[in-house]
């Protein structure tokens, strides 16, 4: 597990952040966490503070730091970090990305329930290597809405709050490996009009933009960071197959969806072995 401290980023109080001679702040990046919380990041001193109109609980502070800010800090340090879940399989690791609310955690949780090792449910660090891309978790977590817990993990011993503003709950789970070679990325699109499950290969330009749209950035409009992320995403899109998933958001279709996902993964494996 990577922590902010291990990456040499340090949480401080707001008044400890850098100020210039006139008392103003210099060299700070303001990164909006949500409508109520902003992270102020001093990228020189590698310090950050969470600024909120109201006090944050310990759980919420940890959630904002580990789940929402840490991936951006890792991205700022020059890495490609996807907002998605990751499970391992005999065909390699499978990553699921998509906008919030599209069902990433439910799908990764359901695959974990079906016997596949869960590596991450929210943030995935992609790193190129000679043998392909590896995918690594930033931290182990499994967070689900109550209805998903009831359907997928009815026998869960205990669940824990994630943060003050969400009803999602954190579950204990058997941690899989920290990282694995990735074989495919699946983007969770909207359900198809006809209710069918579809697994559709994405052309490379669309794949690149989808990866960018689902990756973390500390300051998305900063030119240097945007160029860096663009180059990383383009390389990933050329080297990792990306699919668009369309399926009804219905728990009963998950087994059939799993089957189609693994069928796509098998086809990739066959093509790569040729």
């Amino acid at each position, binding site marked *: 597990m990577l922590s902010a401290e291990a990456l040499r980023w340090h949480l401080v109080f707001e008044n400890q952040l850098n100020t210039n001679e006139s008392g103003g702040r210099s060299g700070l990046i303001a990164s909006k966490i949500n409508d109520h919380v902003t992270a102020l990041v001093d990228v020189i001193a590698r310090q950050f503070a969470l600024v909120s109109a109201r006090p944050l609980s310990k759980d919420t502070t940890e959630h904002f730091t580990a789940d929402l800010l840490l991936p951006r800090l890792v991205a700022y340090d020059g890495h490609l970090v996807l907002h998605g879940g990751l499970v391992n399989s005999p065909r390699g690791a499978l990553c699921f990305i998509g906008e919030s609310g599209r069902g990433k955690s439910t799908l990764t949780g359901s695959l974990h329930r079906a016997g596949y090792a869960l590596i991450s449910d929210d943030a995935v660090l992609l790193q190129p290597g000679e043998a392909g891309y590896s995918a690594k978790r930033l931290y182990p977590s499994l967070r689900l809405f109550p209805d998903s817990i009831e359907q997928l993990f009815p026998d869960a011993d205990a669940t824990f709050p994630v943060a003050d503003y969400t009803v999602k709950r954190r579950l204990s789970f058997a941690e899989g490996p920290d990282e694995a070679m990735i074989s495919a990325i699946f983007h969770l699109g909207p359900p198809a009009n006809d209710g069918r499950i579809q697994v559709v290969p994405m*052309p490379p330009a669309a794949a690149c*933009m989808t990866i*960018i*749209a689902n990756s973390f950035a500390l300051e*998305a409009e900063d030119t240097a960071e945007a160029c860096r992320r*663009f180059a990383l995403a383009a390389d990933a899109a050329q080297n990792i197959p990306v699919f668009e998933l369309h399926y009804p958001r219905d728990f009963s279709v998950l087994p059939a969806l799993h089957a189609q996902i693994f069928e796509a993964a098998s086809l990739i494996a066959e093509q790569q072995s040729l």
Partner: protein
Amino acid sequence: MTALRYRLAEANCEHVISLNPVALKIANSRACWHAKLAAHRDQKGPDLNSAVDMTAPYITSAAAIESRLGDETVLLDLTSSTYFGLDPIGTIVWEQLKAGAAPKDICHHVRETVADAPDTVEADIEAFLAQLAENGLIRRG
């Protein structure tokens, strides 16, 4: 534009990538890792009456950086933090623009090099150029 469009797969796929750029504008109002995919069909179409001079060369924006992905291209316009995806024919047009070709010559080139170029290629390319100009990606030379 239908003839030049291609679908990601067969029918019922929601996302259609066309010769037109598909804008991926970084959303400022939400958490910053989210970008918003503005699907072409939801965008206001180009004003076809906006004057695209088919005989004069255009200059591509220096603020547009690009990445070639197979026979497709993604552009990042640094002035607007917007990404644009170009399909294979859009990529040919972009390459020809960079080489200094005038639009009418680009049309001819597409007809010569694309096996199933549609009858509407001139109108399609004119509309594409209008969109590029509208988004600040090209200007008259």
